[in-house]
Structures are given as C-alpha cells and as structure tokens.
C-alpha cells in the first residue's frame, strides 16, 4: 500500500493539466440500485468480510445490469448538480441534496443540522423558488462551467460528511449524515469516472468513517487517535478505501481529496500509534498545503511534524499561525497546541491551552476528554 502511494506521489505531474471530461455523460441507473446500496451500507458495519465483499459486488452488478439494459440517462447526476448550483446559497446545497437525492424528510434534515423544521422548510422553499425563477437548469453543466461545478459538488458531499463526523457525539441517531455522504460519494465516484478526486473523496470518507467505532467509548468520551483501540476499526471499510485510493492515484490527476485519503490510509496502515509513518504523513501534508494553503492544513501539518521530528518543531510550525484570528477561536488549534506543550514538558502552558480548548468545546464527549487530560496533568 505505502509503496504504491509513494510511487504514485513521485509520478504525479507538478501541474497536471486536467484532461477533457469527455466521458462523464453516459451513466444509467435506477432507484433500485441506490436502495440496494443503501441496504448494503447499513448492513455492512456488522457483516463479516466475505459477506461485505459479496454484497458490494452484487450491488455494483445490479447497477451495471440496469445501466446496460436501459437507455434512460441517469438523472441523479443532473439532480446533484442542480442542488449544488453555485447560484444557490451554500446552506441550501446540503439541504436540497439531502432532500432530493438522499430522500430525507425536512424534519430529518432539520434535526441533523440542529435547526427548526420551519427554518429548514423555509430554506428549501426559497431555494426551490430561486431554481424556478432564476431558471437554474436541470442538466449537467456546460464543459466551460465544468471545472468550477464538479469541485463544488464534491465539496457539498464532504461538508455533509463532516457535519455528520463532528456531530458524532450528539444524540441524533435518526439520521447518519456520514452514511448519507458516503452513499452520495459512491454515486459520484461511479458517475464521474474521469475525475479521480470523486473516487478520492469516497476513499477519504470510508477511511475516516472506518475509525468511528474507536472514537468514542461507551462512557461518552472522545478518544484521541493515539489512544484508540485499533481492533475496533472497520477493516472492510479500510480495505475498500485503500483499493479506491489506489484506483484514483493511478489516474495521475492528484488533488486534495486523494492526498487527504492517502493521509488516512497511512494512519489506517499503522498497527499502533507508535508505528505511524510520520515522515510520509508530514510529506503528504506539505503536498496538501500546496493545494490548500490554509491555517487548518498548516495546523495538521504541525501535528504531523511534532511526531515526525519533535514537539518543539511542531510548536515552532504552529507559531506561524498563532496570530491568525480564526485560529484563536478554533478548538483543534488549542487542543493540538496543548498536546505539543505537554509532550515538550511545558506543563503550565499546556494546562492553559487545554483550558482554552475546553471553553471552545461544545460537545459533551469532547469536553469530557479535555477534563480528563486536565485532571491527569494536575496529578
């Protein structure tokens, strides 16, 4: 796995010119296939390895059969592009996609985003009005608009996933946004075979989601990567994610989703935290920073560096974004800084940083984690 990654990375073009997406308008499928995938997705968490493989194959085969036997063009892709049209406000993208493509009810979407059903209903009505009045088409975008559009569609799906990921500790068991996002990711990865970023996104979501069972113990406390029981990681999802990532990387059109998936894959590859290949992860974050020079990416790169080199090196890297106002109110910044300070023996400063992180944490499991950290330092 890792060899494949390294070799794919070294062969990536510095500035790969995207090839023509000449073949994206061809798929055919039916609701039935989504429903099959939906069933498989909910079952596979419990299913043993072989069953999982068989179910996935069967679901794919079903979809292929439909595609080959009918001449009806696939309308799901047009639908997703309409829901994620840049002329609509960003909050409407996720709401419309979940409603029309995933078939969730307004009440379900409202509860997943922690807003009232009335407010969500208004948001959806306003968006539908704009689609009608402004003439937003129900078609795939023109090739001239394509590069802007497919990226925003992937961003919407990843946003839905992250919403589900961060809401992990909330008590909402009704809708699993992570599962919905993965379902959308499967559709996009299949319908956009010429855009490896779509496959990369699916791999990224699967590899992140695979670790979910280990992120939270029964006692409602967040468990950091370092402390996770890796036997709880979902090996089926990891295998599938890795295979998808390799498939994406071999297309030679790298991008931020593939790189983030590669980072997850390296984590999933390590038997335990100590065996993590931090040099690879640090290199991947550097690569990611070239695409997305954001403080959040630099924060993650600093964490990787703190394990690859030393907590001191990580702290030095963090100081580059210390003045950034958005970082000052960003919980992960303070939590990461606290961890590095602690490992660097700066106990007093570490306590301060943990306290700051605690004031910025809203979810119960995250708060419990930080309280335990603070208690441990004091003892």
């Amino acid at each position, binding site marked *: 796995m890792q060899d494949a990654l390294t070799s794919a990375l070294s062969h990536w073009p510095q500035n790969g010119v995207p090839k023509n997406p000449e073949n994206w308008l061809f798929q055919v499928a039916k609701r039935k296939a989504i429903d099959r995938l939906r069933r498989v997705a909910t079952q596979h968490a419990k299913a043993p390895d072989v069953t999982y493989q068989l179910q996935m194959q069967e679901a794919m085969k079903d979809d292929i059969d439909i595609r080959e036997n009918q001449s009806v063009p696939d309308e799901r892709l047009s639908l997703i592009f309409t829901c994620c049209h840049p*002329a609509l406000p960003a909050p409407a993208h996720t709401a419309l996609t979940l409603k029309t493509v995933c078939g969730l009810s307004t009440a379900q979407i409202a509860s997943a985003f922690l807003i009232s059903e009335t407010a969500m209903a208004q948001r959806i009505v306003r968006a539908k009005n704009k689609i009608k*009045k*402004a*003439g*937003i088409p129900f078609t795939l975008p*023109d090739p001239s608009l394509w590069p802007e559009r497919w990226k925003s569609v992937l961003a919407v799906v990843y946003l839905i996933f992250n919403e589900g990921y961060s809401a992990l500790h909330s008590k909402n068991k009704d809708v699993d946004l992570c599962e919905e996002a993965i379902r959308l990711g499967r559709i996009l990865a299949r319908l956009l075979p010429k855009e490896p970023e779509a496959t990369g996104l699916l791999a990224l979501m699967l590899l992140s989601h695979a670790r979910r069972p280990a992120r939270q113990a029964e006692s409602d406390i967040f468990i950091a990567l370092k402390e996770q029981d890796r036997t709880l990681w979902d090996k089926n999802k990891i295998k599938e994610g890795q295979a998808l990532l390799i498939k994406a990387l071999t297309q030679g059109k790298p991008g931020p989703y593939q790189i983030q998936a590669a980072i997850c894959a390296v984590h999933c590859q390590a038997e335990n935290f100590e065996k993590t290949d931090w040099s690879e992860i640090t290199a991947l974050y550097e690569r990611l920073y070239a695409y997305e020079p954001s403080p959040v990416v630099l924060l993650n790169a600093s964490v990787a560096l703190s394990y690859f080199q030393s907590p001191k090196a990580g702290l030095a890297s963090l100081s580059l974004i210390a003045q950034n106002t958005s970082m000052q109110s960003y919980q992960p910044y303070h939590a990461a800084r606290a961890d590095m300070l602690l490992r660097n023996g700066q106990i007093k400063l570490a306590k301060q940083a943990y306290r700051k992180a605690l004031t910025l944490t809203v979810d119960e499991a995250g708060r419990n984690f930080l309280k335990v950290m603070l208690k441990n330092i004091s003892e």
Partner: protein
Amino acid sequence: MKYILLIYQAEDAGPTPGSPEFGPFMEGYFGLNQELTNDGAMIAGEGLQDGETATTVTVRNGKTTTVDGPFAETKEMLGGFYFIDCDNLDQAIAYAAKIPSAQFGSIEIRPIMDYGQ
C-alpha cells in the same frame, strides 16, 4: 428566459482609450455582441456614460426631487448592460463570463419578471 446582465465596475478600472489593452478589450465586446446575435440571444446591449452624468429622481407625496449623481454612491457603478434571451441561468452565466469587464468588475444576472405566470 430573459435576463438582464448588469455590468458593474469601478470607473477607473479597466483599460483606458488609447492604451494598448483597449483594442483587445473592445474586441471582446464586439465578439460577444456577434455571438449573442448569432445565437439569437441578443435583445439589447449598451454601455452607459460615466456615473457623474447620472441624475436621480424621486417623487414623494407628489413632490418631485431631482439630484445630481447615481442612486447609490458605491465604488463599483453600473457601466452597461445586456438584455438577453436564452434557455437557462447556466447559459446566462456563460455569456456573463465572456463580458470583458467581468475580469475586473462584476456582472449581476437578474431574471426578468414574467407577468404571464
């Protein structure tokens, strides 16, 4: 569907007449005019005189007030427009992106109210 494409730009932005960039800039407009005409999408398109030539009129309680200047004093001013007829918003966006002023100003796309509905 009918759309108006409102061209907003700062008045000191863009190439000035006589500069080497001005020729290609205007040719961009001529090319777009031709394309809109060929596509059967063109209803009208005009450039406007400077903002300082603007006059704003209001009528309150039957009393007409006329003042010098545009309605809104902003850095970006309405500098011209296209009135087009095309299939959908994506087509309108594609035309708007071809307006040379989009490269330093911005184009607001507004669908025309259809009173028949």
